[in-house]
């Protein structure tokens, strides 16, 4: 097996035993990129020289006999909406096509401290708005399992790069399912952490009260390792929580005896692919076999999650994206003769259709006379949705559901119909509204396409999710299958 196809923990062991070097790993990854990137198109930017420089430094450290950390010398791809000092950060938008940040996001700093080897920046739906990565203003990323299909989104590049073995792991961001849905479509593990568990400083905001950064990985252990590295309080982010970050790999016991798993009935209604449903029921049976106690429960306000999300997220976005006006950085329309025309033309041309649609939705929702009916009402319903989870998670340790109603869909299949596209996130959105953690991992295949199982837990209960996910993974082999590229 090629080094690029291994997991971070496998590679770490080999580095420690000096069976391979960090440079060899990095070279293997770039060799794979050279072979398959034309088909997959995960990367907006590749950072080969810097990556090899970092890898050489790690090798030197190993050569001096120094101890290395779990992610040291291991390649990573970062979604191109996280700021990387001196490296182009575009949000896959014409608006930021030339933006080179003078600072790095906190997660990027943390990975740098951990000795991670940044190999590039991953494609996304423009400003993380979308569920297929078709909204990238540069190019669409393809699903490694079937290049006629989408990888999901908005973190499609991050998911596809991991699935295609173009990297060992990656970071994405999740506002309504943007890590979990593409992880599900691409057959990898993805975690949307508790709101406040990972610093948002340097993550280019879409919807501030929903955005969270999280890992994509080839297995649960890697996911836990990466999360252990990036989690924790950051004084630069007022919304980041102060909590003790454990070593999350300590939860990987394989033992789920007595674990109480709730099955929310609202997640098993019409509209879900029967093949997907069957795989989720198989997974539930597997958990029962392993000694977990599975029982039906209810999250009664589930049906309101989508409308609530499409008021709150666009409202915040309309304000967050106001700064892109051509005055200070990024794209500027040079033809305008006055400031208002410059603002209008810059924004008309700099943003794509979906971004403009959401800015208009959000502007409307916050407008005088509509605020109470839309935004304020949405905040109240959001509280009800959160209370649903609070109640269910009093009784259950974990809630289980499909990650997305279908496997990966075809290009253009939903591109013309925003409502159909939005429904792709119907099972992931509530988790963001409630601020709780959600993890997806492979649970089988429908017509050769991977399907993800979603586990939802209590705030800061990521450890329990890892425990359940690891037990399932240990007793299945879905995560070991690779796409033919």
């Amino acid at each position, binding site marked *: 097996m090629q080094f690029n196809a291994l997991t971070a923990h496998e590679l770490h062991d080999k580095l420690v035993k000096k069976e391979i070097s960090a440079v060899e790993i990095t070279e293997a990854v770039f060799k794979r990129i050279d072979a398959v990137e034309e088909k997959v198109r995960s990367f907006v930017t590749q950072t080969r020289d810097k990556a090899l420089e970092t890898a050489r430094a790690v090798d030197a450290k190993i050569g001096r006999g120094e101890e290395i950390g779990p992610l040291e010398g291991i390649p990573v791809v970062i979604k191109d*909406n*996280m*700021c990387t000092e001196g490296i182009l*950060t575009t*949000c896959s938008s014409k608006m*930021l096509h030339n*933006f080179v*940040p*003078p*600072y790095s*996001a906190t997660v990027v700093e943390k990975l740098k401290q951990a000795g991670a080897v940044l190999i590039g920046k991953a494609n996304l739906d423009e400003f993380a708005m979308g569920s297929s990565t078709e909204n990238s203003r540069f190019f669409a990323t393809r699903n490694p399992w079937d290049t006629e299909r989408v990888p999901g989104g908005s973190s499609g590049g991050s998911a596809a790069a991991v699935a295609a073995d173009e990297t060992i792991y990656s970071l994405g961001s999740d506002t309504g399912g943007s890590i979990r849905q593409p992880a599900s479509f691409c057959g990898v593990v993805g975690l949307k952490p508790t709101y406040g568990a990972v610093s*948002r*400083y*340097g*993550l*280019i*905001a879409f*919807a*501030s*009260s929903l955005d969270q950064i999280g890992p994509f990985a080839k297995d649960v252990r890697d996911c836990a390792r990466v999360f252990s590295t990036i989690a924790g309080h950051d*004084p*630069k*982010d*007022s*919304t980041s929580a102060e909590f003790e970050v454990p070593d999350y790999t300590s939860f990987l016991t394989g033992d789920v005896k007595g674990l109480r798993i709730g099955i929310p009935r609202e997640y098993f209604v019409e509209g879900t692919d029967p093949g997907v449903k069957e795989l989720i029921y198989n997974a539930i049976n597997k958990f029962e076999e392993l000694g977990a106690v599975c029982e039906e429960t209810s999250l009664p306000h589930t049906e309101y999650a989508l409308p609530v999300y499409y008021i709150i997220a666009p*409202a*915040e976005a*309309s*304000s967050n994206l*106001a*700064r*892109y*006006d051509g*005055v*200070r*950085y990024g794209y500027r329309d040079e033809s305008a003769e*006055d*400031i208002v025309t410059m*603002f209008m033309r810059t924004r008309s041309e700099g943003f794509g259709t979906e971004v403009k649609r959401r800015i208009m939705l959000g*502007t409307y929702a*916050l*407008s*005088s006379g509509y*605020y109470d009916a839309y*935004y304020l009402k949405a905040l109240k319903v959001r509280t009800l949705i959160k209370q649903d989870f609070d109640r269910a998670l009093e009784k259950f340790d974990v809630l289980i559901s499909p990650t997305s109603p279908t496997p990966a869909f075809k290009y253009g299949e939903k591109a013309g119909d925003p409502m159909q596209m939005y429904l792709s996130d119907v099972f992931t959105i509530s988790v963001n509204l409630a601020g709780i953690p959600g993890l997806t991992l492979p649970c089988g295949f429908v017509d050769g396409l991977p399907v993800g199982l979603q586990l939802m837990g209590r705030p800061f209960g990521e450890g329990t999710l890892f425990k359940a996910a690891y037990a399932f993974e240990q007793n299945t082999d879905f995560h070991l299958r690779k796409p033919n590229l």
Partner: protein
Amino acid sequence: MATQYEIVIGLEVHSELKTNSKIFCCSSTEFGGDPNTHICPVCLGLPGVLPVANKKVVEFAIKAGLALNCRIAEFSKFDRKNYYYPDLPKNYQISQYDLPIAEHGYLDITVDGQQKRIGITRVHMEEDAGKLNHEGESMATARYSLVDYNRTGVPLIEIVSEPDIRSPEEARLYLEKMKAILQYTGVSDCKMEEGSLRCDANISVRPVGQKEFGTRTELKNMNSFRALQKALEYEVERQIDVLEDGGRVIQETRTWDEARGITLSMRSKEEAHDYRYFPDPDLVPMIISPQWIEEIRQTLPELPDARRERYIRDYGLPPYDAEVITGSKELSDYFDEGLKHTGNAKALSNWVMGELLKFINASGISVADSDFPIRPASLAELVNLIDRGEISGKIAKDVFAEMQQKGDSPAAIVEAKGLKQISDQGAIAAVVDEVIANNPQSVEDFKNGKEKAIGFLVGQVMKATKGQANPGVVNQLLREKLK
């Protein structure tokens, strides 16, 4: 009979808080500096940055709220005020909307010797914007415009009054009192010329007796206390003229044109912004403990009203003098420092109100400046020299003039110039004899009962001694010799 009108004014005051760093980042708040040198990714609003509230700003806002007799919120939050302008890097301003840090306060002003209370609706925190430099008259006509973001993110408090103000003069007095209170509290420098104190006004008129307010206009761009009063006086006349001509006042924003002495329409209500306020999701709500509020209350200094009462009560100062001196923190601190060196508060106050203010106004030097030549202790010493009879009041004025120049102590000046008052009877007697010999007519007049003549003779003696003779002793000797 002509209609009598009542004026209704409410003021919105913006004051920069003098914290070392900005409201949501670590950049310096220092005034001046080359353009775009006091900036960082956060106050530039670069993609991905997040604000973190500066605790000192909250503390200062609470302190100001307490000094203005407000109720401090135990739960407060920041909101976004959305509008597009190139001096605003995020195209929204972080401000406070429905849960301001302080509400329901007041301050007292003295109008024609009467105390009047003006209600304060609210005090809230917000960030300042940057500064546009147009290559041309305005943004519309400029060849290009440059933006300096040094002021972006400097902390401000906005203080909104109730519509309790009834004349342009009251408005000026309110603003002067506001400045004094904020300066005493130490939260702001309140320099109108540097823009650290700004004021907008809402003004309307209504026939006396009418309950409903008239249609108001909002006035902007008044950059001094005088400009505030002038602009309001102009606007009162303009609105009354409109009504007298049978017209209606239009609700609009108007700007004060200082050079032409008139207000001009900026934008109408229809063009007004919809700011689309909503809670800033990047900042968590603030929970302010009663203990913290109490701790801050303990740090409040003596405020102008309390100090004025002390001057009247303890030192017998006339209310007007007490009002003037306490109207400026610097002057009042100066006076208090002087009082440590003399027991004669009344005389010290007279010197402060007279010669000292005259000098300050003429020289433009502030008493707080380190190079202000007359130290409080020196002025007090001057008072003491007069009280001890060592110099006359007239000589003292010469000594004061000398102190302005060199900053020497008055005793040293008196010594060096030989200005000490002569009270020695022997020394004065010789001069008295001479004056009697040289002025036979006046001597004759006095002896014939013309009491006024003695004044002329005293003056002659004073003249001959260059003012140094003790006038009391001169008078006494003359009377003895002319018996």
